[in-house]
């Protein structure tokens, strides 16, 4: 499985915040996605219809999850009826072994890949390379980050953090092309290099946006045409799909194909949708002779088992929650330390990987709720974040998550909030203690490293007002307002 680096979250966030170039491109790209989404929804449906569509989609996905064993069986029967092979992989290691076995049995030398997030979870590229098989990403963004040896920065714009100069340098190094600032030219370089790979590859690996249970149809959503190429040119096609990707019937696709591209890029529909359920028919002119569908768990059971977290599996990976998240928009995708980033990454990474290692992720949110409002399948992300925070705080990890200072403070807070006199007393004490450190209305630096000074390490506090509101009220306002309109109001 791909390495989980979420323990580095705070450090990596800091690095991203200090990267000015990155801050600029994040703001620019996210703003573009947000604007495009809003305008296509307004033009095509209006808020009310959009809301109804989201409600219906959420219900379909939730019901599919509640009956997941039934639908997994249906997918299996349908695909095999179509002549395709179906596999059930418990974890990344099993999934990798299945793919490797298919590749070796067929003497595969080169594998072309169209985008698959599950394959990122599996870290399959390393596994293939180790066995002397060359994996080639064909989505332009994925291709760029593969050359750079990185992980996707954004779920639908994997290389958005790379400038044209950086891409040009990568192509110079790997493809021996001439340097250029022309983006069109760079695309032609990639196209030509990948055409050779399409012609040479014996195996294509794709992901799945949706898997239709009744017909065994895998639906791919792409813009470049690499999904079509991957499912057309090689002799073998392998689909890697998370076990939650199922929708019951082909008619459900109409709704999801309306929701996904609009939520993701603000497009009415993407340039290509590929629907594939098995190998080519013998009479077909071209297309793969073998079709393999690998259904992957890899930690999803942990989400399914928890009745609160289950709805996270409704996710259709559009990335809207990333684009709208005030935290993602500052720290970007790499800080989250695994495959999924942003609000959805913060809720699925800890249960899918390791609660201890990824314990900081549920706190990477202001709980503003925008992610929930834009989610096409209405995942209540803030609620799920709180649920995970609760688990962390309650010591579900087998250790106390809080420091003695924090417990002392919360204990005092608890006492104060239940008693008005105590609250005022404590507030006055705080006022007194922070006064020496206040400058120009802000407390910028507190002493006593690290348990107190930590509070001001990365932010300023507004200095407490010289007089509390309660005192102001008693001394001035209550008197002024005693007879506002000539009637006494207690």
């Amino acid at each position, binding site marked *: 499985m791909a390495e989980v680096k979420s323990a580095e979250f705070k450090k990596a966030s800091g690095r991203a915040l200090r990267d000015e170039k990155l801050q600029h491109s994040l703001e*620019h790209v996210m703003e573009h996605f947000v604007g495009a989404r809003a305008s296509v929804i307004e033009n095509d449906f209006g808020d009310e219809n959009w809301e109804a569509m989201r409600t219906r989609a959420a219900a*379909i996905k939730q*019901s599919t999850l*509640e*009956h997941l*064993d*039934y639908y*997994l*069986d249906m997918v*299996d029967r349908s695909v*095999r009826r*179509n*002549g*395709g092979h*179906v*596999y*059930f992989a*418990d974890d990344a290691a*099993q999934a990798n072994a299945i793919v490797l076995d298919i590749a070796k049995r067929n003497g595969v030398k080169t594998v072309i890949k169209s985008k698959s997030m599950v394959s990122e979870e599996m870290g399959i590229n390393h596994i293939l390379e180790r066995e002397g098989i060359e994996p080639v990403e*064909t989505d*332009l963004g994925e291709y*760029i980050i593969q050359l750079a040896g990185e992980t996707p920065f954004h779920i639908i714009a994997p*290389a*958005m953090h790379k*400038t*044209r100069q950086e*891409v040009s340098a990568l192509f110079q190094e790997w493809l021996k092309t001439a340097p250029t600032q022309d*983006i069109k030219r*760079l*695309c032609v370089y990639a196209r030509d290099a990948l055409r050779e790979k399409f*012609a040479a590859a014996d195996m294509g690996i794709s992901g799945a946006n949706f898997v239709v249970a*009744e017909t065994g149809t895998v639906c791919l959503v792409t*813009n*470049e*045409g*690499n999904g*079509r*190429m991957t499912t*057309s040119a090689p002799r073998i096609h392998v689909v890697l799909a998370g076990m939650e990707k199922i929708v019951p*019937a*082909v*008619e459900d696709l*109409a709704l999801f194909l*309306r929701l996904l591209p609009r939520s993701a890029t603000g497009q009415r*529909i993407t340039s290509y*949708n590929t*629907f*594939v*359920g098995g*190998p*080519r*028919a013998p009479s*077909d*002119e*071209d*297309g793969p002779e073998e079709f393999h569908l690998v*259904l992957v768990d890899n930690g999803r*059971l942990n989400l*399914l*088992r928890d009745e609160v977290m289950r709805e996270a599996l409704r996710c259709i990976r559009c990335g809207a929650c990333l684009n709208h998240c005030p935290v993602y928009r500052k720290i970007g995708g790499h800080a989250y330390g695994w495959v999924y980033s942003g609000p959805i990454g913060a809720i699925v990474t800890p249960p899918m990987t390791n609660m201890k290692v990824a314990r900081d992720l549920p706190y990477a949110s202001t709980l503003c709720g925008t992610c929930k409002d834009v989610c096409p399948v209405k995942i209540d992300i803030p609620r799920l974040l709180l649920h995970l925070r609760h688990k962390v705080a309650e010591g579900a990890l087998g250790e106390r998550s809080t420091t003695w200072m924090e417990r002392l403070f919360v204990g005092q807070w608890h006492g104060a909030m239940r008693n008005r006199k105590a609250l005022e007393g404590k507030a006055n004490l705080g006022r007194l203690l922070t006064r020496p450190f206040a400058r120009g209305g802000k407390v910028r630096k507190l002493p006593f490293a690290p348990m107190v000074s930590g509070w001001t390490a990365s932010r300023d506090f507004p200095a407490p007002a010289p007089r509390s509101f309660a005192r102001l009220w008693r001394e001035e306002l209550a008197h002024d307002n005693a007879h506002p309109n000539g009637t006494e109001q207690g």
Partner: protein
Amino acid sequence: MPPTPEEHPNKAAFLLRVRSALGRTDPIVHMPDHPSLKSNAVRQQEKVRTIVARNEARRSSALDRLARTAAAASWNVRRAGDAEEAASIVAEIAQQSGVKNLVRSAEDVFKRVNIDAALRSVGVSPAILASGRSRSRGALRDMAFRADMGVTGVSYAIAETASCAVTPRKGVARLASLAPPRLVLLIEPEQVLETLDDFFAITRLNRMQARGRTINYFNFISGPSRTADIEQTLTIGVHGPGEVHMVILG
């Protein structure tokens, strides 16, 4: 029909774990209540009959809508009064782009729209992209990759999203509408549907009536191949055609 592949040995244990995660001990026997799974072939046929009738009644407005949404999605849209005009539009596009290697599919629409004659009159000789007797997988691929224009028909065109449903089969290679940098699709009026829902309802009925002749592959083509993966700058024509033309009869 090829033999049905065997069940994966891990299937039973996998489903058992899923079931127990959901807090159940027994498998579900009755199909869960889901509206789009409920109707049987007879009811689906009834539904499709209504859809077809509606689309017939509203054909001319659907054609207009298709032309509008397609133009908005960067298609070059041309409308032809008859088959002859359609053929000469195809020839005109080929001529204007200086096309040398043109491939087309072998399907019924070309019996009605004789593009071969029109193309020859402007000095382009079309080749049919099909495997044939002597053409191997590699040879067909090379031919498709060399071509600078592809022409095919469609199964359906969906006005809502300007999506052309293309169904590869005998005579219709997958690569014909994918590999060449220029694509022309011929659309006949009765192939136009108003919505995605119409299309998928028909697809489901076709599957129910297929009786073993299952169609495992089809595509929507809804515009030019595009990417914005470098600096969010829209660039046309990556792996698929960057120039797409819709020639609508009617």
